[in-house]
């Protein structure tokens, strides 16, 4: 005969076994992702870290050089010039992109044919870059480009859009803005759609005007989406490679050699140790910039 105590113990054991079974399930579910992440993200990142302390050129044994790659880069004017170029492009692209995207998204929020506009806005993002870069080169040619033709017909001087290091940055920034702003608009439209309409209704009843509604309701309630847009923008600019590669080749005078393009040079030159160290420094910089941007926006959200 089974005693009450024994029966309770058996039930406890059964429950524990069930819990054990239940506990294993989540791990099994996430295992495929974890394995893929470990193989294709974690392993290469840790390997990059290891490589950054070597002078490996892709062949032969690894030779550890300590912090020499980092010292070289941090003392290299070329590295800092590439970072500065990316910094300038960030200033030219990200704030303008956020303002532009937010303005367009608010304007489109209740617009008719919103789907059509959204499709039109995303088109540059999916257009092959190389084709657009060629259009850009023709448009911004100093002597025969349509942009300078327009400027001179207005009595303004022609600009060396692709031939001076200052204006070449602006030309590249315009291409990046043109390509990526539509994507930011789509993100912000999604963010705006989560704001309940009765919030605006209440504000209107309280006498809030359009500007007041925008500043006190719209902006605070899409801050998280804006943070996301800023982080994506920051990542885009600091990894920027294709646009300057195709439009300016990093010139003139290395004036558009971005951090991404500078990194690419190490790879094509088989300087993998240096490339890995450069990657690590870039990751740190982007991380710091992204965190700072999020903090800045979050502090506004909190206030």
């Amino acid at each position, binding site marked *: 005969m089974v005693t009450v105590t024994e029966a309770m113990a058996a039930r406890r054991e059964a429950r524990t076994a069930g819990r054990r079974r239940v506990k294993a399930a989540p791990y099994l579910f996430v295992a495929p992702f974890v394995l893929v992440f470990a193989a294709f993200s974690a392993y*290469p990142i840790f*390997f990059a870290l290891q490589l950054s302390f070597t002078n490996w050129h892709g062949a032969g044994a690894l030779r550890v050089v300590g912090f020499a790659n980092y010292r070289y880069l941090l003392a290299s004017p070329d590295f800092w010039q590439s970072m500065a170029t990316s910094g300038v492009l960030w200033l030219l692209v990200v704030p303008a992109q956020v303002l532009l995207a937010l303005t367009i998204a608010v304007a489109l929020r209740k617009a008719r044919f919103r789907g059509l506009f959204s499709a039109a806005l995303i088109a540059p993002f999916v257009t092959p870059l190389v084709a657009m870069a060629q259009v850009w080169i023709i448009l911004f*040619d100093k002597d025969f480009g349509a942009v300078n033709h327009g400027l001179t017909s207005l009595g303004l001087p022609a600009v060396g859009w692709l*031939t001076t290091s200052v204006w070449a940055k602006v030309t590249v920034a315009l291409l990046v803005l043109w390509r990526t702003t539509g994507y930011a608009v789509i993100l912000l439209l999604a963010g705006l759609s989560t704001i309940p309409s009765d919030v605006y209704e209440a504000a209107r009843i309280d006498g809030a005007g359009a500007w007041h509604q925008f500043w006190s309701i719209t902006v605070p309630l899409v801050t998280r989406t804006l943070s996301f847009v800023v982080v994506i923008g920051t990542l885009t600019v600091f990894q920027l490679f294709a646009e300057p590669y195709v439009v300016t080749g990093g010139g003139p005078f290395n004036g558009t050699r971005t951090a991404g393009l500078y990194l690419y040079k190490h790879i*094509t030159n088989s300087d993998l140790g240096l490339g890995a160290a450069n*990657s690590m420094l870039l*990751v740190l910089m982007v991380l710091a910039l992204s965190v700072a941007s999020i903090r800045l926006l979050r502090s506004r959200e909190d206030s």
Partner: protein
Amino acid sequence: MINSVSSPVSRRTVLRGAGAALVAGGLGACAPGNTTGSDPLPTGKATTALSGELTIWDRTGDLYKVFDKAIASFTAKHPQVKVNHLAVDINAKLPATLISGAGVPDGAFYDDSLLTGVAPHLHDLSQLIEQYKPDIAPYKLGVVTVDGKVVAVPWDLDPGLLFYREDIVTQAGVDPASLTTYDALLGAARTVRDKFPQARPIHLENDQFLAQLWIDMFANQQGGAMIDAQGKLSIDSDPYRKALTWLDTVRSEGLGTLAKYTQPTDLQTQDKGTQVFVPWAQWFVFAPQQLLKASKGKWRAAALPAWQAGGPRAGVMGGSSFVIPAKAKNPELAWRLYEHLVFSKEGYTTVYGPNTVYPGGLNTSIPSYLPALDPDTPLFRPIDALGGQDLWKVAVEAGKQVPGGYAIPTWWGKAVDYFGVNVQKMLAGRLSPDEVLKTSATQIQKNLMGPS
């Protein structure tokens, strides 16, 4: 037809590939493999019929189609050989592939100027090339030889020529035959400008990579190179100084059109006739044939002017060769294919001769294999875009004059960031020739060669 790469890859290889991709993307790196470096490829002729499968990379575009036909002439002779011929952006993909070991082709077409950067990943072909050495243009043999080993099958020679607008030159009263020295060319440019005040007759290259390649052509013409026979930096030297001083004179006198090769300013000024003289590699001929409209048929080619009366009238700008990666699965078969393309009459005739892609033949370069360079046996036909001129004869005669003893340093590509950029600055009037040479020498020595 463009085939896809279907060779199996190991798990470790995939991981290395992922690592290489991540480095390129700014995050990761790749694993060191057991790269064999410059392994010598076995010699000796195969006694049995050739068989097996090959993966060959060529550049995308028309050149791919031309090589496709040439490869067909090889497989027709060796039906047991299957060639997966792929059109690839080789300059972008080959270095990463060689390092990662993933999807490595058995052979690839590759720029000579970038060759030294990947040399440790290539087979040493010295023994195989030995029998052909006397028949290879000395310049080209020097270019494919890295640390005493031949690391590529030498393909084409791209002699520099002087392209000019015959109609404008004639209207200005300049005799093209008189353009025998660079001083004479300068004089001709002044004459053209006097006649046509809008003219900026001489091309000045504004792309930093091409500018470096271009000035190397001028230096090569004078027997100079960035490094001397001992491997020491020799950029701050007379050949470079002479070339830069001449270009600076062109700039300062307003005799030059500063433009990037085949970019809108370049093409428009050539078509309008304000840009009249283009000292450039033979492959400039592509522009009159494919890109220029109004000036098609009005261009002509001559040997480059000499830097001193009676001096050499040729230098080389660019060129490509065939590489066989150390990790190729079927390197012997790749060698046999390239041997057919480069050193057999059937091979080089199939590439350069008239075909469905280029009805007049491939005329943007000439073979570097000297027995193919008979002025009286042209491989390609006279060119309508050059007013029916026989470019073959002009190019072959120039090609045979190209000075040898030229070597490309391993850091040539990296030097573009210094020398190429400084030349750009000079052409913008921001540096003097001496400043370009001294600054570049210091930068290259410090950043690319280490302390002397």
